[in-house]
């Protein structure tokens, strides 16, 4: 259901256009757990941003659930991200002054879920990631692993089909990183499609399929 056809993307910096992705053609079927690897500056984050509908391609087509994402307006992309995609970032990207519960409620505020259902669903999501005791804590009062669990709860709360993760273990120690990967494995088992950028081989090993990005081109890695 993720279909990229001859997708290119370049950025202009200091009047110098640099091509980041060249003619990328890629299919990711529903329910697949994909890891994207590659050296820094290879374009893997750009690819992830395109898949996550945070950005649009310069040329080529991107079909998601049969919809042409490349022709959508900014607000339509927001709608796709709200309903279909959950994000997990390396630096967690929680809102620091909000409690854990409020952070998880945020996507539902934009989805116009009524307040009572919002709180109920946020509590359940936090329970699922094992943080039912920390509802009223602010991110600064929690460890990195706990913050990433809040971010995962937030990503899951609107029940998206796809989870897009940009180095979700990059700021965590190895043990905590593997705990987070167990959560990813559970999400995968629950039927989510997962696209994850990582540069750690043991983290990539949790995925079913590995894509290597180098100089803006994508190649298949070892399929296990």
């Amino acid at each position: 259901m993720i279909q990229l056809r001859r997708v290119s993307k370049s950025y202009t910096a200091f009047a110098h256009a640099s091509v980041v992705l060249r003619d990328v053609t890629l299919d990711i079927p529903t329910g697949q757990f994909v890891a994207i690897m590659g050296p820094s500056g290879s374009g893997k984050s750009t690819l992830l941003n395109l898949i996550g509908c945070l950005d649009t391609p310069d040329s080529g087509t991107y079909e998601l659930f049969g919809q042409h994402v490349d022709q959508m307006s900014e607000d339509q992309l927001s709608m796709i991200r709200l309903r279909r995609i959950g994000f997990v970032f390396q630096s967690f990207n929680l809102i620091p002054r909000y409690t854990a519960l409020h952070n998880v409620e945020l996507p539902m505020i934009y989805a116009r879920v009524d307040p009572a259902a919002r709180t109920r669903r946020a509590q359940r999501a936090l329970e699922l990631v094992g943080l039912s005791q920390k509802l009223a804590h602010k991110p600064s009062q929690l460890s990195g692993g706990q913050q990433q669990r809040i971010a995962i709860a937030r990503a899951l709360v609107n029940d998206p089909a796809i989870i897009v993760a940009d180095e979700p273990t990059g700021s965590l120690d190895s043990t905590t990183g593997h705990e987070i990967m167990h959560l990813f494995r559970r999400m995968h088992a629950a039927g989510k499609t997962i696209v994850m950028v990582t540069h750690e081989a043991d983290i990539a090993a949790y995925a079913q399929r590995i894509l290597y990005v180098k100089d803006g081109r994508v190649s298949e890695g070892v399929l296990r």
Partner: protein
Amino acid sequence: MTTGASISVGLVRDAFAQALFALRENKTRTALSVLGIAVGIVAVIILGVVTKGVREKVFAEIESYGLQSFWIYRNQNVADPNADVRRGSGIDNDDLEAIRLGCCPAVKHVSPRVYFTEWNVLARAGNRFTRILLEGVDAPFLEISKDELDDGRNFRPTDIEQRRPVAIVGSNVQKQLFPERSSAVGQSFRYEDMKFTIIGVLKEKNREFLKSIGAAETYNINDHVMIPYTLHQQMLASKDVHTMAGEAVDKASIQTAAEQVVDLLNRHHFGRYQYTTETMEAWSATADRILTNISLVGVIAASISLLVGGIGIMNIMTTSVVERTREIGIRKAIGAQKHDILTQFLMESVFISTIGGIIGLVVGMALAYGLTVWSKLDVMPSFLVISIALLVSMGVGVASGYYPARRAASLQPVQALRHD
């Protein structure tokens, strides 16, 4: 479960939390922008209540001279080669009689006014002297000029017919000539070799506004002394009436009444004279123009202070958007649309400006209360002024928050997320 109501509830609560956070985190900064709006709103309220108070006072004063009244007299300024030949006031007792008999249906009643060329004369009672404005009138004059008797009575037909030496005096005359008496009725004073008995004393009239726009100090209505016009004509040895004072049957027919009188005068005097008509209505329109211009200057001043307040909010909101770029990126990544972000920042600035508006309102009301006690004008703000002040402060919030909010709403999520 999505409902229409939850749209606003969720966003309002979120924006409310944002605004409270901004208030707490940046106390000085927020307090200063709140202050800016508060000062502007205080200016608007003070302007509103003072204008209202002064306007009411001025119109009450003007109405105290009779809004249905008119005055007609010969226009002496017309360049007329025969001015010397055509002496006289152009109005006489025959005209008066014709009007009394009902020839001018729009006229309720008239009174002649007869006076000396220099009508500021000296009166004496015992060893006290005072300057008076001596004039001869008829009984309806009190009603035409909306004068009220504090004590005593009006002229009776016999006073007029028999040219009795009786007088109705203004409050100043009583104060100057009979300071030790509570009423001058029954007392007498002298003008040259004539002795007048006081039959009535007028209530004091307020003339602060008229004085303020330049009415001569020598023409003070409270120095008035009225005697039967027949007696005054005898003193002048003439049947001339210098001014015809009249009252129309209602406010709508003041012009008609004045025109009917002028027509009559032209017919009786074969068009030999030209007449000037004055109405209180015209004075009231002049006062209205003056007051409107004064208010306009005030409105401009208050608007400038509100504008400065608005710029303060625009400044704090622009800073806030830059500081929260990353947060905006997060919100967009998880699905916030442009209008969600726009609403959030707009509500924040409206919240700040409304707080400023409420503080300004409270301070403004306190000042208005102080002013009411001090000036004895009723200047407490009306519900309308209060609503306008609140709406204006909200409007300033929208106007000054719109540009920063639009900037926030149009941020690209990828770039915003990269921002530290």
